[in-house]
């Protein structure tokens, strides 16, 4: 769950991390009286907004209104801007980078910090980046910040501010169940203060039961993906022609891989999960059909999800949605014989192996 900059900054403010004063504008009438120079920032979840024209500077009432007018409703790399953040301009003396992220192989948080901020951290030379594993049981403690400060050559005053921000940022990371909290740039102002000029916060989707106050729809998801999400499916739209339904994320991915190796282009990823409910199969077809594929491949290795249940689901879906597109099914594992019998009786093609099914569906999609 990717948060918008303004939401990230609200969280930062709550935890005491300094951020510029600002407000969110959704329509022109939300714009407040111009008092001092401001930045108008489109709220979209993309890096490099600035380069794409998503940020305007306003040094007059006129410029403020024009900036908001230009940005609201505009499209930046395909995404429509529905909100802009109007924020006090800050006097930038220097830009730093800081984040807490997950190091999977260490199964630990990692602190990443650099004196070279304001650019994508990947473009900063390794020797200018401080990284430090945080022991999740010890948590963040000041000594880590002292080590980072020294690496970054911060003077006493900046180090104190920096460490105070680190402590709070780690709290955000931990208490808000974040995958990533990033401040880039963390600005040193001409007045000598550190302030978070941007905020990137990604929360763990699996933790949302603890954060019921936060409700945003992931703007990176298509309407169909959002529908699937609301129905509990793991579903991703892709740009091919073959609809895919399989069980288990790994097997589904392997199915896409095998399809691709056979020059087939998947229209979607849909993991049925572990189920034994005919209706779940039927609803999966509903989703896949809405994506309008040329043919549909079902790949099931029966276990918790029994093959005959899936077969019954396919038959029910075919009837309910009056499907005329080719359906190719691979059934293996628990109750596969029974399942294939059901399909045969209803005139649906099925195969015992994945390869046969894939070859067949690629052929049918090409003919369609």
């Amino acid at each position, binding site marked *: 769950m990717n948060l918008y900059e303004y939401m990230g900054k609200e969280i930062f403010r709550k935890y005491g991390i300094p951020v510029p004063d600002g407000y969110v504008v959704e329509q022109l009438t939300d714009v407040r009286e111009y008092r001092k120079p401001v930045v108008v920032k489109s709220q979209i979840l993309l890096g490099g907004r600035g380069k794409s024209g998503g940020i305007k500077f306003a040094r007059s009432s006129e410029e403020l209104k024009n900036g908001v007018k230009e940005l609201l409703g505009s499209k930046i790399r395909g995404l429509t801007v529905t909100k802009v953040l109007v924020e006090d301009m800050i006097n930038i003396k220097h830009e730093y980078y800081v984040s807490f992220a*997950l190091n*999977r*192989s260490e*199964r*630990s*948080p990692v602190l990443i910090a650099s004196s070279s901020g304001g650019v994508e951290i*990947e473009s900063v030379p390794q020797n200018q980046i401080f990284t430090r594993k945080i*022991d*999740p*049981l010890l948590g963040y403690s000041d000594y880590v910040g002292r080590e980072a400060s020294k690496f970054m050559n911060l003077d006493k005053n900046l180090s104190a501010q920096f460490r105070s921000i680190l402590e709070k940022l780690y709290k955000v990371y*931990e208490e808000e*169940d974040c*995958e990533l909290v990033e401040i880039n740039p963390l600005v040193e102002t001409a007045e000598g203060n550190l302030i978070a000029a941007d905020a990137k916060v990604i929360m*763990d*989707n*699996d*933790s949302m*039961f*603890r954060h019921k106050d936060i409700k945003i729809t992931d703007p*990176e998801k298509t309407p169909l993906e959002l529908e699937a999400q609301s129905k509990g499916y*793991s579903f*991703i739209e*892709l740009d091919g022609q073959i609809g895919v339904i*399989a*069980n*288990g*994320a*790994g*097997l*589904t*991915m*392997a199915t*896409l*891989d*095998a*399809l*691709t*190796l056979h020059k087939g282009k*998947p229209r979607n*990823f849909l*993991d049925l999960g*572990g189920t034994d409910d005919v209706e779940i199969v039927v609803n999966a077809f509903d989703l896949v059909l809405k994506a309008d594929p040329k043919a549909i491949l079902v790949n099931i*290795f*029966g*276990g*918790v999800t029994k093959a005959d249940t899936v077969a019954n689901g396919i038959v029910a879906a075919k009837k309910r949605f009056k499907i005329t597109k080719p359906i190719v099914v691979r059934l*293996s*594992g*628990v109750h596969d014989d029974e399942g294939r019998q059901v399909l045969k009786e209803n005139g649906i093609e099925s195969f015992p*192996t*994945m*390869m046969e099914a894939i070859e067949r569906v690629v052929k049918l999609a090409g003919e369609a």
Partner: protein
Amino acid sequence: MAVLVDKNTRVIVQGITGHQGSFHAGEMMKFGTNIVAGTSPGKGGTKFMDKVPIVDSVSEAMGFEPNATMISVAAPYVRDAAFEAIDQGIKLVYILTEHVPFHDTMEIVHEARLRGITVIGPNGPGITVPFDCKIGIMPNKIFKQGDVAVASRSGTLTYEIVDAITRSGMGESAVIGLGGDPVVGLTFIDVLKMFEADDRTKKIVLVGEIGGNNEELAAKYIKDHVKKKVVAYITGRSAPPGKRMGHAGAIIEKGVGTADSKIKAFNEAGVQVAEYPMDVPGLLR
């Protein structure tokens, strides 16, 4: 002992009366697993399948001297259940549940490590040593006793590959599903050490997927430390960057952890990588 479990492993199931817990406990018993008790707060005093005592807490279950647990409770309660088991010192903790917040898993895994406790999962199919013991949800029928050890980050795909191995006439010495989450208890290196030390195991299969650098680290480890034959399969080659393919673990981050990088690492370590899952048995010969 075989890999982590054997015929003497005494298993409890936390959440034995739940939909998943009861189904899989039954399957495990059919497989031959020695389930000594189950927990279900408020239902203590009854029996599961007229046989296995149900108690209210792990503390009470300790009377049955378990040394492994399967946790099958809803995601928000996994941290509590795992801490309950860790607090009692149960040495093997398998977490079946998916969608556990990874911050919870980090805590569980680190606490467990310091106490010498092994965590399997979350969000994986568990461990099976045919036909000594199965803790988890792998289908019983795909196994045959043999000398191939399989470790996998995926569930169903594991079954597919195990099934292929069994159909090819070979059999398995141990199958471990690491779990599909970004943070899980075991790494490929952890299980490689176990497989290398296990007498029954002659050949090893690793089933990886995109995301993280678990496979790359494993490849390096194999090169330096593993003498047994290792074969791999990597899924997610066709995944577009940044799209989440069901497993939270399978996000391609900033070019690291791509299928290509993993395949390359394995090849450099002398590990053959199967193109299709069903090619694995062929490579094992």
